[in-house]
């Protein structure tokens, strides 16, 4: 694929939203420091009954589903051969990279003994029975794959740069910090040449990496569902089913397409670019089919296990189940209309409904439907929430900055007069 499909978004980096997000991120990271000094109990409300709180439920189980935009769009482009969606892939991959990278980071904050994580690479410690083992390896591998998938954007940028910023910096501080201008420039030039050398080689093998990037999420997204299979006495029967892996897999796909739509609309709006309506309505025509399959499996499974009365009881659990079900169903029903699929407003609303419903499903499985027995209660503490908020803020911040440094967003055709603030 040619690299002219993408362009750097030329705009100021230090915007007001940059500072807001940076503040949130700094607060979050300060609290993470507190967690490492005084223990997890100092910042979180997790307990021996609820050993997994929102860090696992949101940052890992839900965050990686939201980061499935790259996965969903890659299936569409490379497997279903819809090459005209190709301009969307780079921004989708970038958000996936942030989503997965930070999910991995959250896990390191959440686990009690992160220094022992090297055991995942010691074959004698491998434990193939554990869904967690599978998830951990796949997530690590997939994050690496995403980084490689994003590499072309960095390489292109390196090749095209004339190091104007670096030159300005060097001129300003010439002689200080022990920097010798010609030597540094020579090194930068060498880096540029390496990028020129690497790019065609990477292009040749990239497709195999991309396909790996489709295989890995298929594996670990289903395993995220398998994680709760063992909790047969704790997870409410509405959600505890042998179909958890399948439900989680389909769930991440429709969340993925919906998130790709949301991302595109929000960045078009935020960066004052025209909406990519044609591609988006194409994506939106896929989601209702996926959600239909998902809803059918959910209902069929409830009928088979005789849980329909539990689902309609209108108690605490039933309410959350119906909410999750209703959000996904209403979002999909609205999308069956072709007219709505052409309207940015409806595309946005339906995508929000489906993402909320899909995410609530994951919350239901990991937290809301999880009952370890009498006497246990969990609601996240403020510090716990702020850590999650900080990590998400960092994610958005990174996206905002990187699209202004590297060619990520789709190139605008015939819209060259966009303001270049």
């Amino acid at each position: 694929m040619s690299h002219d499909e993408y362009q750097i978004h030329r705009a100021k980096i230090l915007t007001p939203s940059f500072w807001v997000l940076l503040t949130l991120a700094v607060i979050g990271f300060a609290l993470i420091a507190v967690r490492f000094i005084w223990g997890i109990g100092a910042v979180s409300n997790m307990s021996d009954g609820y050993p997994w709180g929102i860090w696992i439920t949101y940052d890992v189980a839900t965050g990686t589903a939201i980061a499935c935009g790259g996965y969903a769009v890659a299936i569409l482009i490379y497997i279903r051969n819809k090459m005209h969606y190709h301009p969307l892939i780079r921004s989708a991959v970038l958000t996936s990279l942030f989503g997965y990278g930070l999910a991995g980071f959250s896990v390191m904050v959440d686990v009690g003994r992160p220094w022992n994580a090297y055991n995942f690479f010691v074959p004698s410690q491998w434990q193939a029975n554990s869904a967690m083992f599978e998830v951990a390896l796949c997530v690590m591998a997939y994050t690496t794959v995403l980084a490689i998938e994003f590499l072309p954007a960095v390489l292109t940028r390196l090749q095209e740069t004339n190091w104007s910023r670096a030159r300005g910096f060097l001129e300003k501080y010439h002689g200080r910090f022990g920097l010798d201008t010609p030597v540094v420039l020579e090194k930068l030039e060498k880096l540029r040449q390496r990028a020129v050398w690497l790019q065609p080689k990477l292009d040749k093998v990239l497709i195999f990496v991309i396909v790996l990037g489709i295989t890995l999420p298929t594996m670990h997204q289903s395993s995220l569902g398998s994680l709760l299979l063992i909790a047969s006495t704790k997870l409410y029967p509405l959600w505890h089913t042998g179909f958890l892996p399948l439900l989680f897999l389909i769930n991440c796909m429709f969340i993925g397409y919906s998130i790709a739509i949301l991302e595109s609309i929000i960045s078009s709006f935020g960066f004052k670019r025209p909406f990519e309506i044609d591609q988006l309505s194409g994506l939106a025509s896929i989601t209702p089919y996926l959600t239909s399959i998902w809803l059918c499996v959910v209902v069929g499974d409830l009928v088979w296990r005789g849980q329909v009365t539990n689902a309609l009881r209108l108690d605490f659990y039933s309410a959350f189940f119906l909410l999750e079900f209703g959000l996904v169903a209403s979002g999909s029903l609205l999308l069956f209309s072709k007219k709505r699929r052409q309207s940015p407003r409806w595309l946005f609303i339906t995508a929000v409904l489906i993402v909320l419903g899909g995410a609530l499903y994951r919350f239901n499985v990991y937290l809301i439907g999880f009952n370890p027995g009498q006497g246990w209660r969990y609601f996240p503490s403020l510090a716990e929430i702020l850590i999650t908020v900080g990590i998400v803020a960092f994610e958005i911040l990174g996206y905002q900055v990187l699209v202004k440094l590297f060619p990520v967003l789709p190139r605008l055709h015939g819209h060259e007069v966009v303001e270049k603030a």
Partner: protein
Amino acid sequence: MSQKSRREFLKLAGLAGAGLMAAPAVALAGHPVAGANDEELGMLYDATKCVGCKACMSACKRVNGDYGALSYEQAKFDPDKLWDAPQDLSGSTRTLIKLVKDSPKEWSYVKYSCMHCQKPSCVSVCPVSAMTKDKITGIVDYNKNTCIGCRYCQVACAFNIPKFQWEKAIPQIVKCDLCKNTNLKQKGISACAEVCPTGAIMFGKRKDLLAEAKKRLAEHPKQYVNHIYGEHELGGTNHLYLAALQFKKLGLPELKGEAPAEFSEKIQHTIYKGFIAPVALYSTLCFIAVRNMKKGNGHTDDHKPEEGENNESR
């Protein structure tokens, strides 16, 4: 999007789903649980013999305090730290005696500690083999040197036994290991059973414990609830209970005979058997993607994205 491509898509989705669909169907079909290994070591706790002296609790902390990173827990009424007063099993306490009152006349003591399941969930879910089950003694042991602290064992355990040290910067999981590395090694018996003055805790092989429990039930049928808790629960546990009160009232949950790990492992194994499915998926996808690339290289590249989009029939 064209009608044809939709069909193609559904076909693909179906293919991807087929493997996953098959898995639970196989697992739910059910299969016999392998018989319990009665040669393994365990304990029989007889609540009717227990007098609540808590000698077992203090012996456990004395013997395992250093090895298991246990500590004394202070009560609110005790500013001088005179007593160890744990409220529940915790990151400082491996075993606990509680008094359960059903009515003014009906009450019972109950001892909590690891059940040492025949098919332990915690061992099944631990991603780095920090939880292990000894092949001969059946002791479920924890190794803090490999543990990453993910707490999946806590999620998995139906008895809520593994506890985490929430207040420590360097935390670990705390649970009974039948004094495997301390008292059992030195004296051949767990510390709690060794010090029990009334014989409420019996230490030995599961077969002997079961025989003794059955004998007591037969000799004093009126004294007990006619059930040996742990004989069949979750595929059997090596820690067994006899009591006069309903076990549910003692905080021991009513459980099925199948170990949860049998169910989850069956599904996981069906999906990942011999790693065939992932490899097959990867190669199929590679084949499709490379073919698409070759097809696409001729024309798609030259077209601007918008034009490609307009060609789509809607």
